């Protein structure tokens, strides 16, 4: 009781205010009422155009505003990618997002174990989520373009021009094995990752927290194409504005999305989590013109 009487009214008041704030803070956290709001951050505006340019080097992209996002980099002896510039357009049905970054080497062959291809990815989320693959209540969509998934980049003869397979053909020159099981086992058994050319060089992934990253290529709404020119990669991702498949986020003018981008430099043996990433940026759809 003596301690209670020693506490002044001011101290009681202060303690009450602190406890009330702490209770409010924890209540908002438990019920996941997001107090964290991105503001004064880079914002990519998805401008409306009558026709979408889907080719990465199309002249139409030169007229579109680009947002420069710094990449988190590590000190490497090779000149790393330092920044990625992002442009976005929509025709009202689809959106196209173009990434451009410097890369001194074009790495598209990944047939040898020591080879790694260049890649680019973008992550979309309806709310601010943890960087690591979103959260249970905040799913993210990821589209990952892979240079070695574009046509003609898994040609054995191009990778090994002097290749000679001893003992796999008979005296008549015909192959002894009807299937190339020994030299290309993954391809022969139908492993999708070993296919010579993909219809779409973009993998569609959904995630709702760490260890939940799942390929959703059966209903892949995303397409894309990359082009290398003068020491730069340019990649265009295209997707309908509406959420086509479960787990996809829809883009609407009144609800900006969170977006983050990553690029991989195959020359530096980057793959999986070894990559350059940007911080979150806001993706805002330009409002439709009034009729």
């Amino acid at each position, binding site marked *: 009781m003596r301690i209670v009487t020693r506490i002044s009214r001011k101290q009681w008041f202060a303690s009450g205010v602190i406890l009330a704030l702490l209770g409010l803070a*924890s209540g908002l956290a438990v019920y996941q009422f997001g107090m964290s709001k991105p503001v004064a951050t880079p914002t990519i505006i998805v401008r409306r155009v009558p026709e979408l340019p889907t080719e990465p080097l199309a002249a139409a992209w*030169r007229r579109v505003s680009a947002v420069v996002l710094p990449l988190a980099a*590590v000190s490497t002896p090779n000149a790393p990618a330092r920044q990625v510039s992002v442009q976005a357009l929509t025709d009202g049905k689809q959106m196209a997002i173009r990434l451009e970054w410097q890369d001194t080497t074009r790495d598209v062959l990944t047939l040898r174990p020591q080879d790694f291809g260049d890649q680019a990815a973008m992550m979309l989320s309806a709310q601010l989520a943890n960087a690591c693959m979103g959260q249970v209540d905040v799913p993210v969509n990821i589209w990952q373009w892979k240079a070695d998934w574009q046509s003609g980049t898994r040609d054995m003869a191009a990778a090994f021009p002097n290749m000679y397979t001893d003992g796999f053909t008979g005296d008549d020159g015909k192959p002894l094995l009807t299937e190339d099981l020994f030299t290309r086992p993954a391809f022969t058994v139908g492993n999708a990752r070993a296919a010579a050319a993909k219809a779409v060089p973009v993998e569609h992934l959904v995630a709702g927290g760490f260890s939940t990253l799942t390929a959703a290529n059966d209903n892949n709404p995303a397409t894309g194409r990359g082009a290398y020119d003068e020491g730069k990669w340019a990649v265009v991702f295209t997707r309908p504005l509406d959420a086509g498949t479960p787990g996809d986020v829809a883009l609407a003018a009144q609800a900006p999305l969170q977006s983050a981008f990553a690029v991989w430099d195959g020359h530096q043996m980057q793959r999986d989590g070894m990559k350059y990433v940007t911080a979150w940026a806001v993706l805002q759809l330009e409002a439709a013109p009034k009729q």
Partner: protein
Amino acid sequence: MTGWRLPALRLLWWAVWAEFLLVRLFSRVGVYIPKQGAFLTVYRVATTAGETAFNFSLFLGVAVLALALWAHRPLVVALAGLAAGAALFTPGAAATAVWSLVVSVAMVAAVAGLGVGAIRAADGPWEKGALALVLTAHAVGYGVGAAQLAWVALAAPGQMPLAGALLRAGELPALLAPLLLAVPAFRELGGRGLGSGQGSGPADRPPAGRAGYFALGLAAVAGLAVAYLINADITAILAMYSLGFGLNWPAPFYLLALGAGAFGLAWAIRRQPEHGLALGLIFLAGYALHVNQQHILVLAGWALLALRPVPAAVVAKEAVVS
């Protein structure tokens, strides 16, 4: 009201640390922990505690800013209040480009105004220099951010010239500032005393446990060096998402800055708690600021450094006069 500045600031300091450790660092390394039930439960409890710390630090940040601005000139209060209000009351889940542009411009104005005042009020040339460098980093960050937002809002073609180079360059003054901040502490460690331009007013306390501060700095350097060596890529990702640093400069810069920052800050907090904690808020907010709470921390930190508490007698006198 002025008597509440320091207790509120201390509480805010620990709330921001809890948020920094649990939200900005722990929640993002969750990908590497085992996925069994108990680990997941601990992870969820820890991240919810982190979210609580975030919300609490946001509320306290506003309160500390209000206490710092209490009874000061209306122009200063309006400048900082406008920036804080715009950062807090974002329409929708995320700010649009135009709203972000308004906030960026308001933040540039408020931080520049408060920053100049903080440099004037700083003790000695080293601290003035350190604050000038931090102010430069903030001016570059907000300035380039505002320019890019205007570029996009006006639909200018292509990318803004030098935007990436400027943003990377802005990291450099942010890294050099802790080195200058640590100089007085190093001089003290070497037995040179405070009589070399550092204030020695009644608020100053003689630094104790100097070796402990130095060990703190060394531990910080060792921790970051180990992180670099174990997994440089993840270290870069964490640096980007926790403090907005891209780690584009050579690694020794970051090691030195972290060591000097930990050492100098601990020394500054011991010597003048309010001053040191205000600096700490600015450093913990980061370089490339992303969410509302970080902007509030920056405003509160600069306001505390720039604006001395107005004595109650002066407030009462002014009230009588008016």
